[in-house]
């Protein structure tokens, strides 16, 4: 409170009056060396104790009573430096001048402008405005005096309050310093306002996923009603998956070509070298610490598409096999690692080696071999999944025979809801097995749904189809979004139309069991309308809700540590 009313509460009566006086005489004038006129003011007429602060001048914050501070403000005129002046008496009741007071600039009514909050802002209701005007401070002053005389004794002037606890201060414990209280508070420090169209564009991710879930359910309904042969569904989808895989391979290889071709070989070699001994490893790691910093962003960006380890399309089975194949590769040509480490640690190590350039690299180019191995692994694992499913299908068929269908519908509904809500919509291209809860829920839903089907072929087809829809298709969608914007839009439209058509065909069928195309088209129209209203409306709503955002940050929040080489310890 003290700094705020230091103008009014000055022990001398004169400064306030003289301040107003000087204000009238100075503000809006141009300083001139010699003469005083209607628009100019002579410097010599200023009082002896004065200082003139030009824009961007460095000033000390010491306060000298009776000194007049004159502040220049430039108004950019061509011919002469036309300055608006702000008069300001500098005054303090603190001899030692330890902590500078906030500048009492009459020109800017400072507090809100500087982002400081007063404690009043912490109250919900506006109880009072005690510090607003001079009257309030005049009212509070006699009390203040008395309190001071109680505590301070003979000292007429007090030291300024400091936000410190180790000094004994003459202020009571509940003293609240108006200048510094809540000074470090930030509101919405990282607020990025949303724009409408980007938001709509981003929401296509959700739309795509919801539509693919709907398409899956529709396919199940077709199979369940015996309207479509399960074999045809699974062969179409498998064909699409294989095609998608080729497209994906093409994209990945194209991206690889854009990168430095030697980097891949280098990093593989480093893995091998680094693993051969712990001493060597340590040195390389130390080197990586020092050199890593400039390289890091580049290498992490490069890492996911380089496809050294399992490509993201594969399920966990594949990952394991790929992992083992890499370790076979390394242990074949090299002596076994001297230190025993867990597989996870080893992979971590290899990551870290990846990012460090090494000096001792045997020049060979394993990129092609690597790709070949990778494809082989993919084929192997897909064959494995295929045959496992084939073997499991009879068991799955009778899995829930003792459960009533109603429970199954309810359960699969909730599982699919979980899938939609916990899906990793933000995951980029490099994300490996994101949102395991979501994927697992979807696979479980498809399993229980499949167990309703009467024949083994149907069970097998539906399960395989679900793996393609819930396991592989999201990866493909991510790559599509990464690759091209038009493709993404096209895919979205295709999915929306497909879902609408499917739902339309399922809900109404002709008496003779044929396809009711009218209802299908109606479904398409409705789905398009729903999609537009849903994405547009929700985006608009979200933007509207932004004004309620009130995030408070301050020194009490746990700091977020910045650690340079964090990936050494946890890979996340």
């Amino acid at each position, binding site marked *: 409170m003290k700094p705020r009313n230091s103008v009014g509460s000055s022990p001398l009566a004169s400064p306030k009056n003289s301040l107003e006086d000087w204000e009238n005489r100075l503000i809006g004038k141009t300083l001139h060396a010699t003469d005083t006129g209607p628009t100019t003011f002579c410097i010599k007429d200023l009082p002896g104790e004065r200082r003139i602060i030009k824009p961007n001048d460095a000033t000390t914050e010491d306060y000298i009573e009776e000194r007049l501070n004159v502040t220049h403000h430039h108004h950019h005129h061509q011919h002469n430096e036309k300055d608006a002046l702000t008069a300001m008496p500098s005054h303090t009741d603190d001899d030692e001048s330890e902590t500078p007071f906030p500048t009492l600039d009459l020109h800017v009514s400072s507090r809100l402008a500087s982002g400081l909050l007063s404690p009043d802002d*912490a109250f919900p209701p506006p109880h009072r405005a005690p510090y607003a005007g001079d009257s309030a401070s005049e009212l*509070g002053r006699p009390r203040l005096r008395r309190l001071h005389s109680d505590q301070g004794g003979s000292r007429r002037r007090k030291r300024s309050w400091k936000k410190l606890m180790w000094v004994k201060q003459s202020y009571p414990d509940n003293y609240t310093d108006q200048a510094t209280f809540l000074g470090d508070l930030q509101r919405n420090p990282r607020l990025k306002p949303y724009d409408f169209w980007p938001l709509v564009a981003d929401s296509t991710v959700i739309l795509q996923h919801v539509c693919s879930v709907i398409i899956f359910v529709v396919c199940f309904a077709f199979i369940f009603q015996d309207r479509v042969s399960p074999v045809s569904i699974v062969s179409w989808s498998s064909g699409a998956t294989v095609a998608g895989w080729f497209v994906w391979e093409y994209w990945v290889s194209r991206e690889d070509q854009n990168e430095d071709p030697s980097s891949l070989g280098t990093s593989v070699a480093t893995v091998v070298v680094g693993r051969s001994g712990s001493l060597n490893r340590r040195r390389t790691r130390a080197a990586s610490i020092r050199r890593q910093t400039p390289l890091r962003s580049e290498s992490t960006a490069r890492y996911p598409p380089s496809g050294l380890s399992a490509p993201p399309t594969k399920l966990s089975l594949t990952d394991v096999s790929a992992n083992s194949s890499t370790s076979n590769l390394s242990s074949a040509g090299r002596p076994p690692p001297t230190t025993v480490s867990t597989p996870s640690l080893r992979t971590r190590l290899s990551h870290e080696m990846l990012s460090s350039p090494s000096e001792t690299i045997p020049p060979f180019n394993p990129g092609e071999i690597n790709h070949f191995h990778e494809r082989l692994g993919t084929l192997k694992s897909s064959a494995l999944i295929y045959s496992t499913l084939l073997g499991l299908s009879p068991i799955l068929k009778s899995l829930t025979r003792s459960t009533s269908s109603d429970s199954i519908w309810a359960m699969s509904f909730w599982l699919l809801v979980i899938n939609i809500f916990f899906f990793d919509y933000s995951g980029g291209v490099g994300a490996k097995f994101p949102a395991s809860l979501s994927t697992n829920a979807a696979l479980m839903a498809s399993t229980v749904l499949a167990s309703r089907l009467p024949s083994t072929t149907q069970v097998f087809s539906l399960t395989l189809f679900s793996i393609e829809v819930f396991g592989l298709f999201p990866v493909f969608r991510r790559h599509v979004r990464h690759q091209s914007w038009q493709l993404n839009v096209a895919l979205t439209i295709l999915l929306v139309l497909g879902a609408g058509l499917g739902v339309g065909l399922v809900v109404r069928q002709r008496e003779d069991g044929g396809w009711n195309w009218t209802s299908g088209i109606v479904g398409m129209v409705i789905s398009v309308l729903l999609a537009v209203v849903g994405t547009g409306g929700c985006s608009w709503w979200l933007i509207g809700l932004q004004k309620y955002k009130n995030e408070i940050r301050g020194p009490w929040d746990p700091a977020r540590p910045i650690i340079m080489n964090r990936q050494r310890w946890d890979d996340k």
Partner: protein
Amino acid sequence: MARRRTYTVAMVSDYFFPQPGGVESHIYQLSSKLIDRGHKVIIITHAYDDRKGVRYLTNGVKVYHVPFFVIYRQTTFPTVFSFFPVFRNICIRERIEIVHGHGSLSSLCHEAILHARTMGLRTVFTDHSLFGFADAASILTNKLLKFILSDVDHSICVSHTCKENTVLRASLDPLMVSVIPNAIVAESFRPRNYRSSPRAGANGFQPDPPARPLAPHEMITIVVISRLFYNKGTDLLTAAIPRILEEHPNTRFLIAGSGPNAIDLEQMIETNVLQDRVQMLGPIRHEEVRDVMTRGHIYLHPSLTEAFGTVIVEAASCGLYVVCTQVGGIPEVLPSHMTTFAKPEEDDVVAATGKAITAMRAGQVRTEKFHDQVKKMYSWSNVALRTERVYDGITGTISEEDFYGFDIGGYNGSRIRDFTLIDRLKRYYGCGIWAGKLFCLCVAIDYLFFLFLEWWFPRENIDVCPDWPRKPSADEGSSSVDGDAKRASSRA
């Protein structure tokens, strides 16, 4: 001068001995010092294992261990009303005037404050911790705190940052929140080779011995004592140690404490083969802290959030130069010649520690003087004195103008919280659209419950227990009483 008024105070918290910790020792030391000043203090906490019923600690501190169901980390299950009958009984038996709750996560404390207000007692709340505003747990806790603190007579925080936080969390009037720091028992944290009166020379004006710079080959030990949790900055520590040791030969680390992140440290030690330079002592008791600290030269405190940071005061008192992260209330705690501050970043922690090591080697830091300086800064007698002023203020011993002097005219012209039910309901109603109504409901039921208890267990039937003989109130600022605390901590 008129005789100082004394009070009967009940400290209520879930956290108390035998559990170790900052809140626990705060309550004990404060109670002990208040008793020295002639007040009567009892402590109410929940039962710890077989520690039930009434116990006496040193200095006549009476502890009620109320049997209660503990859910998580010694916090009792939050039942809004079930504590009331026992609490009322204790308050009447002990003729309590002021109920002083500690710890914003302690549901026992919250219940006690609510019931105390219903019974017409004055209440004080001490907040020991910082909370954010972002996550769900904080939002719930903050709402609860708002509920409790909207009717409390006065709050105490342990640092100015903590005060800002509490004021924001519970929408309080800042003048109704005092800042009273923690303290340490300086006698328990003496440096090694400490002579109690360093100036016992012939005339008492002996010049200080010159600083002795450490030789470059002399080993500098950096001590870290903390629970190894994420929010204590163990990740920073794990990342910084290898780099510090690499850049500075003849340094070593001494790490005490345990926790989930200890495994990271061990892994770091093994990966970098630092077994001979980093020693991990595992968990240590509070009594051993001083002995560990005096083995080192620099204390490194990489915490990410800290309301006060008593441990850095302890370290400085032991004559260690302190390197700490600039978070929470830490920048307020120690003067700059005792500390080097770092941003909570790996690079900055490494740089600050490097600076500290260089300063130690150059002999620029007079660590041997730290103990006496810290002793002057923080003492529990001072804390008790300042707490007493809060008690004076809320009971009206100090007039309202004196207590809230420099800004008169708070809520409706007065900050004295009267006990009329309708006024209390008004205060609670402002807590939120839905929460306000819910809180009002709770308070109304609490009041009905109180009436029922008054009828079922009449006041006249409750015995009043005899007091422990009160000490003649000590003089202002006498520091001779500090020694009791050390003895006290040994006995339960």
